[in-house]
């Protein structure tokens, strides 16, 4: 092969040389032993940034003090204060919790994590990004603050399809428009300190979106997740005050006119 081809192939897929494999987890799972400390890759962690490890080290102790699954995942931003449970709930018999924390480098981090009786957190997801109302540090990325964003999962055996996220504190409702023209409205939820200046929303994606005979199939669920046209934060009078149109947003921010 040519050197250029070698280079292109090498750059195409990043190395896992620094990854720590977890044989204990493999054996435990093979033996059918439920384990809360599973290999981190059993959870889907989505980060908005690649973070600088050196910055994270001084606050590692704070992270360790909380046994949240995302702190056992390499690359998780270190918190500036302990994660808080914003709300908990149950969708179609599957319990979950929404946890959030302000981070040193990545702004707001929030996660949706299934909380089944066996203690597993398999299926949890997290994302981070600078957000209006969350204080920046000197190390916070320079991207503009988002005013609304989302984390969405398709149907799995631990959670139905869902959408959740933060919105600016003036928003009392979040409206989600799907590509087929249907909308979903979710009330916003106040967050405890130190996140009292933002609100959150969380909702299962409507069961009506799924034909009865294909409920839960990956094809339908994944397709549904891909059809979000926009999300809007609405104030008490129904006025759009925050907007995100994923297809056209720049750095996670859309003009208000994109949400109507």
């Amino acid at each position, binding site marked *: *092969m*040519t050197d*250029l*081809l070698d280079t*292109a*192939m*090498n*750059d*195409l*897929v*990043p*190395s*896992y*040389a620094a*990854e720590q*494999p*977890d*044989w204990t*987890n*493999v*054996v435990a*799972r*093979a033996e059918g032993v439920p384990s809360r400390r599973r*290999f*981190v*890759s*059993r*959870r*889907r*962690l*989505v*980060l*908005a*940034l*690649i973070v600088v490890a050196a910055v994270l080290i001084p606050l590692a102790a704070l992270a360790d003090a909380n046994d949240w699954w995302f702190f056992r995942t390499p690359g998780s931003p270190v918190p500036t204060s302990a994660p808080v449970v914003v709300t908990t709930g149950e969708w179609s018999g599957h319990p979950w919790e929404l946890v959030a924390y302000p981070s040193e480098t990545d702004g707001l981090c929030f996660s949706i994590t299934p909380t089944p009786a066996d203690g597993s957190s398999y299926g949890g*997801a997290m*994302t981070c*990004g600078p957000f209006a109302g969350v204080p920046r540090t000197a190390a916070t990325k320079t991207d503009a603050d*988002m005013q609304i*964003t*989302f*984390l*969405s*999962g*398709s*149907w*799995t055996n631990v959670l139905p399809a869902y959408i959740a*996220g933060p919105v600016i504190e003036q928003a009392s409702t979040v409206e989600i428009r799907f590509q087929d023209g249907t909308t979903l409205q979710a009330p916003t939820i106040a967050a405890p300190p130190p996140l009292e200046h933002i609100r959150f929303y969380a909702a299962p994606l409507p069961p009506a979106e799924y034909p009865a005979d294909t409920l839960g199939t*990956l094809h339908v*669920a*994944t397709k549904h*997740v*891909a059809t*979000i046209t926009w999300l809007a934060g609405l104030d008490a009078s129904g006025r759009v005050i925050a907007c*995100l149109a*994923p*297809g056209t*947003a720049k*750095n*996670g921010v859309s003009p208000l006119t994109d949400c109507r």
Partner: protein
Amino acid sequence: MVRHTDRRLAEIEALYRDRFPYFAQVARAIVGDRERAAEAVQDAFVGVIRTRDSFRADGPLEAWVWRAVVNSARKATRRPLVQVGEEKDIEYELPELVASFAPFVSSLPERQRLVVFLRYYADLDYRTIAAILDVEVGTVSATLASAHATLRKKLRKVEADA
């Protein structure tokens, strides 16, 4: 029998520990997602441990394990996705040339892609690749040559257009 399978478990563990980055990188090439690839490797080894008694030792254990990893990664491409605010892969940003080149790799026929991935990211010899994919060694050689020719041609075009 117990002693035999325990020894096999030790061999599997040694493979896992020694070759994890290679398993994960090939899985990543197939799956296209870092976390999902690592998960696919874990899933593959769970299956390998559970079915290790069925390994008949008529070929290398490594090829048998690799086959499980490749199958697990292929299966993982059909699992549900989690989506965040902006619809883009922000985990790993590709250089421009590589980003232009990536679709050509993706558009290779599946067998060519797998051969390329196993040769490139796992550094496996033709015989092992043949055992993994259950084809003749000559087929591996021909498939790889064909893939190389296609990729070289596409890469030259990308370079010329840049």
